[in-house]
């Protein structure tokens, strides 16, 4: 028995020595002591030495959670020749010291937990591990910069990748941007080596117009069904564009946020990958002109939806973000043509769009003399349910304000902000540069934007909180720095993958510090903005981490699975198979005699079956009814002991 102080974490809230002394008197306890940090080298050595000297066959450490340090001590007992499961962990930190201020009660509670742990330890059974083969292949869902980076990193390690993208082309939001902070580089230029690299990599299969429709299996061996919508143009398309020239249907291009036009048969933008054209069935009037003009007969209206199954060992989710829709903040009147979002501005600045890259007031094409940028639209806003700071908008606002100034040196550019958030190397410097460009910074969040009743003008109402005066800014255009939110349809995919989501809608990470690229499900990794808003720098780093975490599962070729799984006692089993109906991963089969039979590979040790079984025939190893009962008895006995003494 080892009682840990965890520095002051435990010892500052309860009497660890008293707990250790108490444990020494419990049946079966050979040796008991306390120690400042059990997880330190000295602590571990102390444990090993005690096992050797006292010939212990079981150990109990009362310290932190199983998650945190069970593996540390289990490894130590294993080194001493015992089965690692002969170690029992009692949590007196999260369960006791961290949640109390009452010294005496905490000490008592710790003692009762220790009493229960010692009882449990006596009944622990050895657990073996099993080697499971893994499928050395990864599916990456979403082909924005995060998905591309992860796919490339994996493929370069020799791990084949299936890259699934729902749009007709890959690249995601980064391809829509005009410049990228903090260097003002052209994003297409920086991204296209990666885009082309992925497109031409022999180990990467790209599926566009595709979405995941079913997920089965578990880490190491998932079976994923992907549904691909028909493109109506075969891959022999040479991208000559004649179909598009003759197509009579024209309407706003989604990729250009309405600042450019496209035909019903189209490529979203000139450098799009794959370069094969796409026919948009919804808008097509089926005149058939494209079929006629195509020199290589690539157009084919008879193409059908396809479903394919893939066997993969891990899944990387990189489905990105969406821009917050500002219509919700009605005081900003986003329905007005001269009030646009930053993403719309990024498109307006592209040379291929309607304004040919010029900044013009949408309602009448006038060159704006005054532009107001408003920060935190849909971020840092409890009213719309997004309390978080997007953390990117300040930087892209500085970027775009500077670009407007460069295009139109005589135009007044305002940024109305609550706080400018530009932490880290090069970012504050970028802020200073923007200040030097003559952008007018107003510290205040505008309350409302009112369109002038008589002229094409907007009035922005804001307090200059530095002077404490309410001001009105007359503007020709207003640009809303709309925050980044989780993609609206993500719930469906998240459900199929069995992922937990944060209340803001993003995929919940395993641990915010130690596992931001892991999801709540083993074998499913998170890359980029699907785990929370971030810029490209951080997206790329995060995606790299996700790729390496996926590779970690696959490179050895096998997984070691702990078999603390469910087990059936045939003597008790009445073949009702209640267990099999409740088992979520479908781990329970039927053997030749009709008894329930557990597939150890698939079993997640959740214990649901044990609850459903009417006879207690199915049990989880080391969580057997008899073991838990003994643990509870330990707890009750202690409390009765105390009750009697008082």
């Amino acid at each position, binding site marked *: 028995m080892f009682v840990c102080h965890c520095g002051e974490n435990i010892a500052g809230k309860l009497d660890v020595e008293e707990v250790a002394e108490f444990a020494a008197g419990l049946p079966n306890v050979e040796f008991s002591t306390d120690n400042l940090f059990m997880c330190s080298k000295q602590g571990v050595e102390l444990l090993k030495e005690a096992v050797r000297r006292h010939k212990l066959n079981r150990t109990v450490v009362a310290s932190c959670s199983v998650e945190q340090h069970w593996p540390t001590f289990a490894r130590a007992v294993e080194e001493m020749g015992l089965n690692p499961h002969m170690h029992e962990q009692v949590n007196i930190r999260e369960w006791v010291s961290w949640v109390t201020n009452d010294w005496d009660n905490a000490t008592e509670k710790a003692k009762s937990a220790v009493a229960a742990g010692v009882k449990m330890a006596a009944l622990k059974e050895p657990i073996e591990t099993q080697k499971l083969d893994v499928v050395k292949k990864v599916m990456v869902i979403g082909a924005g910069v995060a998905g591309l980076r992860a796919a490339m990193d994996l493929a370069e390690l020799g791990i084949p990748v299936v890259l699934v993208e729902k749009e007709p082309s890959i690249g995601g939001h980064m391809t829509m941007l005009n410049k990228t902070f903090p260097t003002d580089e052209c994003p297409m230029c920086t991204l296209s080596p990666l885009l082309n690299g992925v497109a031409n990599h022999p180990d990467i299969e790209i599926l566009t117009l595709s979405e995941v429709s079913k997920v089965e299996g578990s880490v190491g061996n998932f079976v994923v069904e992907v549904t691909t919508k028909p493109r109506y143009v075969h891959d022999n398309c040479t991208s000559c564009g004649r179909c598009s020239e003759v197509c009579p249907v024209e309407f706003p291009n989604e990729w250009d946020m309405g600042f450019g036009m496209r035909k019903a048969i189209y490529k979203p933008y000139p450098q799009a990958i794959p370069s094969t054209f796409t026919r948009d069935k919804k808008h097509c009037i089926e005149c058939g002109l494209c079929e006629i003009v195509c020199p290589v007969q690539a157009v084919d209206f008879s193409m059908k939806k396809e479903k394919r199954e893939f066997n993969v060992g891990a899944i990387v989710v990189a489905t990105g973000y969406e821009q917050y829709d500002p219509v919700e903040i009605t005081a900003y009147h986003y329905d007005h043509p001269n009030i646009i979002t930053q993403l719309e501005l990024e498109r307006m600045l592209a040379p291929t769009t309607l304004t040919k890259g010029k900044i013009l007031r949408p309602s009448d094409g006038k060159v704006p003399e005054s532009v107001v940028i408003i920060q935190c639209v849909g971020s840092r806003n409890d009213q719309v349910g997004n309390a978080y700071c997007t953390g990117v908008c300040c930087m892209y606002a500085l970027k775009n304000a500077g670009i407007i100034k460069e295009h139109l040196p005589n135009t007044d550019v305002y940024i109305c902000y609550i706080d400018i958030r530009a932490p880290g190397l090069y970012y504050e410097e970028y802020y200073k540069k923007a200040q030097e460009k003559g952008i007018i910074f107003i510290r205040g969040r505008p309350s409302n934007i009112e369109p002038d009743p008589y002229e094409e003008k907007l009035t922005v*109402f804001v307090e200059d*909180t530095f002077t*404490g005066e309410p001001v009105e800014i007359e503007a020709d255009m207003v640009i809303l720095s709309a925050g980044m939110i989780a993609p609206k349809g993500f719930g469906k995919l998240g459900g199929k993958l069995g992922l937990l989501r944060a209340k803001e809608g993003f995929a919940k990470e395993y641990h915010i510090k130690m596992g931001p690229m892991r999801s709540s499900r083993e074998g499913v990794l998170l890359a980029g903005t699907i785990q929370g808003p971030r810029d490209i720098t951080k997206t790329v780093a995060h995606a790299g981490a996700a790729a390496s975490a996926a590779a970690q599962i696959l490179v050895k070729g096998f997984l070691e699975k702990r078999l603390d799984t469910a087990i059936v006692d045939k003597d008790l089993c009445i073949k009702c198979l209640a267990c099999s109906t409740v088992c979520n991963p479908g781990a329970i089969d039927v053997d030749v005699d009709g008894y329930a039979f557990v597939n150890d590979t698939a079993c997640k040790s959740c214990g649901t079956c044990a609850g459903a079984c009417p006879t207690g025939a199915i049990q989880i190893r080391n969580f057997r009814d008899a073991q838990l009962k003994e643990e509870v008895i330990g707890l009750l006995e202690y409390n009765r002991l105390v009750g009697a003494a008082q």
Partner: protein
Amino acid sequence: MSSSSFPNPVRVLRRGERDEEIIKALKNEGFDINACMQCGTCTASCLSGRWTALTVRKVMRKAALGDSSVLESSDIWMCTTCYNCYDRCPRDLKVTDAIIVLRNLASARGFIHKNHRKVVQILAKTGHAVPINDKIQQVRKELGLPKIPPTLAKYPEERELLAKTLFQLAPEEGDEQ
């Protein structure tokens, strides 16, 4: 306070000099105005602030710091309770209601404008904040309405009971200017 003859020109923040009653009163009504991020949405929303010294954001700041000068100044009485700031605050603070809490506290300490005292007296006397007069009685008759409406105006005993039970104002403590 310093005993020197030169008063410190700067406001000193010192333990025990915050007006805890302000903080408590707001808390009791469920306002955690410490969560105010001083964004100024409220000030920018405020019609009154365009014409008067009322800067809602500063009122919130002073109240959060327990600065009792906020109760003594007439600023909080410039709010027309239009609720623009309340509906727009991104931290979802009930700004207008917080101002009402401050006004209640100011009233309890006797900071009430003399005209407002008068309104309370009129209510006690007539049952209405704006009472009837002879001219209007005549107009009412011309319009085919009873000269006196069937309200408290007609029920003096009940009026008195009401006046005895409600709105007992604190004695004057230096009229709010």
